[in-house]
């Protein structure tokens, strides 16, 4: 038992060990180099551990922690994304030097929290993991150089934490409803007990309030208010992190939770559809007028959260795996954009869209990365954004949500304009007096990895989609304690 427990828990252990080591490094004199190397080593070890544990199936800690294909696939994705983020952040130019080791420490703790999040099947552990992943981020946002006369990082950090804590409160309130209705905190036993009362107002309110906490992480309208400000106020590297990993975590938890709502729950479907449509319209329309590239990505992120929600409106396994696939793709696309932001930005300041002018002459590889990332976000084939949208829309239309599908497509048509404006600056404008950008080899490797990932997930997503859909199916097909199967009506 201990040995198998150890292997099942290995990725988390590796990350925790890395975090502990980073903690000791962060004590005393600031040792940035060691911290960076240590964090990178941790990420590689985590990838290795997650790959090794891909086949593990067990439950740990008195059934509070479920290790299944679903969690293991996502752990691998998190570990890879962790490495990508570390490569992306480079030498953390915009972080105060005295807190750089702490930055790596918090980053590792946050990733560790997310890694645990996907395995949690008990409400209590889930909340703990959620907080473990969120609180380090609250601290990382203000760790930016202070520029004379502005303390936007503080403002955005306060916004982030206020909204975060409020959303957590609402979520806990919703969870208390679910607990009150069923008398249990364990999701597998919550499921069958909730079935008889699922259409009662209390259950729907409980579920909806619970989702609020996750919608906040995913930045779904109307829980999005922190997004553009945090993107703008946080350092470029931090914004890249905030924009990518927590969203995947939120979608993963949503997949576990939405299964509580039986396949036919019109009230919930309508609620989700309204939120999805609102997010898409709000995000895309406001993104049209943005001048700051990070704010633009913030608003486009709200729109993309709306797209991801389409998968949940379908309320079936096809939709859930489509949402997961889409959000993993989104992670790559948005990271591709943030690589460009980090490298184009001079001394870590924010990047206006005009500053991208002539990128194809100043740094061709960055320009290609940007084009691939932005076109993928716009949903142009053959990139992952298109395949993701296709699978989402197919799933939604399968369940007859034609209006939502049309809204989504109208939105992707609107979105093309502002994505094209970014491409226009980078490809069709002259650089003027803007200097060329030199890339070091980790950045080059990162660019090629991201381009390759976006293309590969778009052109040949077969195996990845299969893994996702089997994992979702396994998770929902065999709920313990004799719960009714969810796949049928």
């Amino acid at each position: 038992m201990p040995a198998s427990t150890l292997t099942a828990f290995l990725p988390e252990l590796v990350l925790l060990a890395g975090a502990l080591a980073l903690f000791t490094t962060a004590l005393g004199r600031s040792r940035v180099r060691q911290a960076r190397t240590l964090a990178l080593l941790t990420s590689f070890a985590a990838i290795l551990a997650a790959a090794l544990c891909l086949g593990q199936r067990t439950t740990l800690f008195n059934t509070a922690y479920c290790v299944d294909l679903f969690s293991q696939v996502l752990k691998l994705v998190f570990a890879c994304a962790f490495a990508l983020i570390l490569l992306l952040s480079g030498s953390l130019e915009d972080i105060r030097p005295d807190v750089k080791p702490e930055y790596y420490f918090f980053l590792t703790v946050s990733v560790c929290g997310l890694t645990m999040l996907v395995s949690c099947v008990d409400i209590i552990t889930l909340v703990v993991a959620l907080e473990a992943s969120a609180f380090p981020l609250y601290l990382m946002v203000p760790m930016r150089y202070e520029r004379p006369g502005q303390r936007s990082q503080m403002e955005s950090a306060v916004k982030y934490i206020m909204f975060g804590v409020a959303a957590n409160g609402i979520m806990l309130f919703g969870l208390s409803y679910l607990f009150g209705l069923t008398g249990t905190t364990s999701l597998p036993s919550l499921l069958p007990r909730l079935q008889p009362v699922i259409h009662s107002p209390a259950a729907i309110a409980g579920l909806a309030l619970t989702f609020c906490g996750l919608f906040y992480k995913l930045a779904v309208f109307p829980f999005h208010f922190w997004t553009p400000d945090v993107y703008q106020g946080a350092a470029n590297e931090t914004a890249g992190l905030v924009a990518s990993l927590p969203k995947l975590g939120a979608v993963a938890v949503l997949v576990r939770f939405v299964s509580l709502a039986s396949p036919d729950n019109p009230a919930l479907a309508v609620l989700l559809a309204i939120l999805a449509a609102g997010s898409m319209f709000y995000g895309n329309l406001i993104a049209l007028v943005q001048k700051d590239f990070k704010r633009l990505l913030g608003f486009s992120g709200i729109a993309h959260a709306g797209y991801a929600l389409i998968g949940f409106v379908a309320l079936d396994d096809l939709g859930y795996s489509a949402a997961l696939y889409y959000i993993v793709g989104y992670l790559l696309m948005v990271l591709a954009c943030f690589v460009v932001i980090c490298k184009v930005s001079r001394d870590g300041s924010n990047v206006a869209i005009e500053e991208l002018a002539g990128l194809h002459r100043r740094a061709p590889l960055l320009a290609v990365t940007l084009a691939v990332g932005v076109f993928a976000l716009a949903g142009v084939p053959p990139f992952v954004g298109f395949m993701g949208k296709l699978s989402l829309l197919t799933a939604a239309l399968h369940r007859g949500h034609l209006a939502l599908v049309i809204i989504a497509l109208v939105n992707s048509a609107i979105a093309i304009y502002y994505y094209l404006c970014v491409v226009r600056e980078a490809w069709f404008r002259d650089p003027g007096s803007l200097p060329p950008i030199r890339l070091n080899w980790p950045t080059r490797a990162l660019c090629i990895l991201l381009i390759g990932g976006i293309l590969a997930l778009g052109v040949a997503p077969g195996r990845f989609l299969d893994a996702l859909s089997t994992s979702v199916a396994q998770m929902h097909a065999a709920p313990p304690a004799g719960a009714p199967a969810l796949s049928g009506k």
Partner: protein
Amino acid sequence: MTGPTHHVLSLLIFGPLAAAAVAAVIKRENLLRWWTLAATTLLAGYSLTLYWNFEPGTHLFQFKEDARWIPALHIHYRLGLDGISLLLVLLTTLIMPLCVLASWRYIQARVREFMICLLIMETAMIGVFCALDFILFFVFWEAMLIPMALLIGVWGGPRRVYAALKFFIYTMGGSVFLLVAIIALYTQRHTFYIPDLMGQPYSGAFQYWVFLAFFISFAIKVPMFPFHTWLPAAHVEAPTAGSVLLASVLLKMGAYGFLRFSLPITPEATRFFTPYVLCLSVVAILYGGLTALAQTDLKKLVAYSSVAHMGFATLGIFALNQIGVEGALLVMINHGVTTGALFIVVGIIYERLHTRDLSLASGLGKAMPVFAAFAGVFALSSLAFPGTNSFIGEFLVMSGGFAVSKPMMVCVVPGVVLAAAYMLRMLQKVAYGGTHNPDHSQVKDLCGREVLALAPLLVFVFWIGLHPEPFTRVMHASVQHVLEQSGVKSATGTSAPLRAQAPGDAFTAARKPPL
């Protein structure tokens, strides 16, 4: 035509992509040009085997390939050719080396990126005509946008950014509707396999919506009358090769879409909307002609003439009879040959004089006799002079059109006269000019490379014009099948097209009220 040795289509599709990968590592610019020319010529030669091995007696898809692509979404990698797509694929492969030749000197900056864009375009264009899976089709359809927008936006004229964005937004806006239709069809039949979606008993309302979604997307691509405004901008700003590709291949995709998808998948809706589409086609012919007559920019003139020519293509398709549709296909090929050539001609003028203004580029005939001869033939071909290719195509279309509605065709006749007017006006100015021409005595006549770029097109102008049978022969069975699927009885026999009698049964079928 199945078997392990038959991956002709895949080779044709991915050959250019492989060539682009090689081009990415070539450093010297001249070597790059030679490499791209060699690769495209080789592919063009190889594509001719399609014609030799094509079985004209059947409407079934040939050279088929099928592989699982994304099983989770039931998406397959399926390719095939029939009589409708064969000639369009050949047109694409044959026009590519000419594009490379036409950009030999025109493109001096960022040659490598330019050649890579051209080769990626070729992959996507051939892919569109060969794809038998709707998602595969859509991927190729959209994959074309990025390289084409780059061609216009990076190597184009002064207003290139505006033109590139307009092109991109228009086409992408249209394809959004195409995607809705594709997914809607999928939810009905649970397949993306195009032949399986044809001729199914969809409900009337469903067909109308799908037809309209198809229509918006394809009408923008053609472009049909109110959706054409992106075309002049894109044509004027694009470099020569970009204009040629736009005119010769990209505009064909809309018409191809109508023929491949609208007619067989939504026959009821097609018959319902036919009168409206015919009206728009007639308007396009007249409007394109009138606007072309008023242009002083050579490229704009040719661009508006494209609108008129494509009006003939849609007119023929929606005549819904064998003669009309075959004529439309021929018009598409002819337009690819002739307008492609005219854009090369304009490019040649621009390379020498750095202007496309009709009053500045006048009286070139004295200094450039060979050039004037070429330009003359292509201009005559464009106005459908008997003996040239366009005559056959437009004649067939008009025969098909007369079978549908005589008053409508009476309206088309001025369009034909307009074509003569604007083309002869252009020819007269460029070749002879007025009494006070600018001094062109220093201007050199065509070099061997330019002759090589134009000569193959000249051959096709006369070949199709004098002996079109090898080209129409391959269409008969497929066109007949499409018409059967769209619920219209075709003209009797497969040798009907050159017997230009109006087939009465097609007439009545086309006029039959829907439902």
